[in-house]
């Protein structure tokens, strides 16, 4: 059975309460009178066992959302509910408890592991700290987890340190550490963008397998539309902190309607482009990203009231500059565009 079919099977089973819900989240970073809007009225929910992909280019606010969800940053307004918890107002002693349930996988497997710690210690530590397991129990659990993420043969890897492992193996260790205390939600921030193409699929399938076997939810942050299509059930496309399109992943990615999503999609390097020459290169139609500095200021002013994408949009209309288009459409596919 293909992964897609399995995904749809899961979706038909789940009619439970969402595990995480973001309501009207806004985050504004201010620095000496200059403010940057990293998230603006973002709404989405994550159901148990589901994968939600946050897609966007750098600076679109996807990592800020990850920080808000994991309690590293606090939103300027809005609420984040995880079960009974209101994440936006957690105190630091509760945050530790919260992180038993919500874990993070970082982008750079070379920087997110302590170089002094062995593989076994890296996995045992959260087990001892968060779950309070005894030394022996934690060790047995850790060995089991190593088998799950296929860091095998276990005896060989147990005492290795990060520098003795390849990038893919290190990323498996980062995943092992994140799933050690069986969190309900894992936030994966670009987990494969630092890895070679030949081992990317492996790590993505591991994440998919884990969410199926452990009913874990995943927030998958990426700029790669293709992997989002393969892994995710739902997609949220972000541009400068605004949700411009969201919905079921195959629906949104196969039939993108927002010009920005279309631009993202046409930017994917595609060796098949030569083969089907008839497919038009939509990338050319769009205004350049690298606009002169003066225009950047103008862009920031636009983003305060109108559509943030207006200055790059080939289909821009007068009303785009005045008010931000609301998200419209059905539950499966919402788009914020007047077109």
């Amino acid at each position: 059975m293909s992964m897609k079919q399995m995904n749809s099977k899961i979706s038909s089973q789940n009619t439970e309460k969402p595990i995480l819900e973001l309501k009207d989240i806004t985050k504004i970073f201010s620095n000496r009178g200059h403010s940057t809007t990293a998230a603006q009225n973002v709404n989405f929910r994550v159901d148990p066992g589901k994968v939600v992909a946050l897609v966007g280019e750098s600076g679109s606010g996807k990592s800020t959302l990850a920080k808000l969800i994991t309690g590293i940053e606090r939103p300027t307004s809005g609420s984040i509910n995880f079960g009974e918890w209101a994440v936006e107002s957690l105190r630091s002693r509760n945050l530790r408890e919260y992180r038993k349930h919500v874990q993070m996988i970082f982008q750079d497997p070379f920087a997110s592991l302590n170089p002094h710690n062995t593989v076994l210690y890296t996995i045992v530590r959260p087990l001892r700290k968060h779950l309070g397991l005894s030394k022996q129990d934690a060790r047995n659990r850790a060995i089991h987890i190593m088998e799950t993420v296929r860091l095998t043969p276990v005896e060989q890897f147990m005492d290795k340190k990060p520098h003795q492992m390849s990038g893919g193996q290190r990323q498996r260790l980062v995943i092992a550490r994140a799933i050690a205390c069986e969190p309900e939600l894992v936030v994966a921030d670009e987990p494969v963008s630092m890895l070679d193409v030949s081992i990317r699929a492996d790590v993505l399938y591991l994440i998919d397998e884990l969410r199926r076997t452990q009913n874990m939810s995943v927030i998958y942050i990426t700029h790669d539309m293709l992997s989002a299509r393969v892994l995710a059930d739902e997609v949220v496309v972000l541009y400068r902190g605004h949700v411009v399109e969201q919905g079921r992943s195959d629906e949104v990615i196969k039939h993108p309607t927002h010009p920005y999503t279309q631009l993202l999609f046409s930017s994917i390097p595609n060796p098949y482009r030569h083969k089907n020459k008839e497919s038009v290169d939509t990338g050319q139609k769009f205004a350049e990203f690298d606009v002169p500095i003066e225009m950047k200021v103008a862009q920031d002013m636009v983003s305060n009231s109108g559509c943030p994408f207006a200055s790059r949009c080939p289909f821009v209309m007068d009303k785009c500059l005045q008010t931000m288009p609301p998200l419209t459409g059905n539950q499966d596919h919402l788009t914020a565009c007047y077109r």
Partner: protein
Amino acid sequence: MLEVKDLWVTYKSRSGIGVSAVRGVDFDIPDNSFLGLVGESGCGKSTLGFGIAGLLDPKRNDVSGKVILDGQDLYTLSKEQLRTLRWEKLSVVLQGGMNAFNPVLKIKQQFIDVMRAHSNQSTSSMVDRIAELLSAVQLDPRIMDSYPHELSGGMKQRTAIALSLVLHPRLVILDEPTTALDVVVQRSIINMLSELQRLQKFSVLFISHDLGLVLEVANRVMVMYSGQIVEDKPASVIMDDAQHPYTKALLGCYVNPHAENVSLKGIPGTPPDLRGGVQGCPFAPRCSFVMDVCFTKTPQLVKCENGLVACHLYRQDEVTVE
């Protein structure tokens, strides 16, 4: 125009066992060509690029073989002769090239430094040239009065490309020029680059780990694995006529984003440890068409219908003779 003959690069190490990152590479780059060099991390593609540009320190590395640029062997030249050659005949844009600008000098000054070192021009003619180059990479010429931190990553990478073209080099080596940028910016830089190459007719050696990207821009592709070139073909045919199992597997990692159903594939296993050299074909342990001979004899790069390939599968005659 550029010929590389039997180039070997071995990084010396304290333990005495060197790492041979480039193992007997032969190829040439004709005038006005866009050549792509693809491989996974650690396959030696950047080392090869450094080797060609003469950027490897002979004290720390064993380099043998010849790199001949316009009839001159780079490895027989003195430091002074190499200095004049760089920028004028051959320039390099590094992976972190956008961070290689001096943060306290204006962009303009950094261009002028290069031009002063190599030619005797008036300031106004240099400024004209800078403006011309910046417009060529689709930037507003006014940014020449900015400092590097005022520019975005994509703008800096464009500026780095413009700088590499300042003295009309014949060959530009680009080592992962877009890896640190996101897809949209990458797309626009790639479009700009291939346009520029078509107009100005310099040669490009484009080093990247992303076969999909290279196939789109290059007109010839070399695939590298564990320090060796395993396949060398025109980009237009390699999609349909990849012969080496590694190239095939690598192509399998890409999916057509327009396809109805997508599933991702990988290549099982990891590249070999290059310490102490490799016996047989380096790809053998990961190869699905592996034969006994692959573990004992290293396949040589030989002519095939559309290009070159290094695999025992296509040398049946020789295999049976043994």
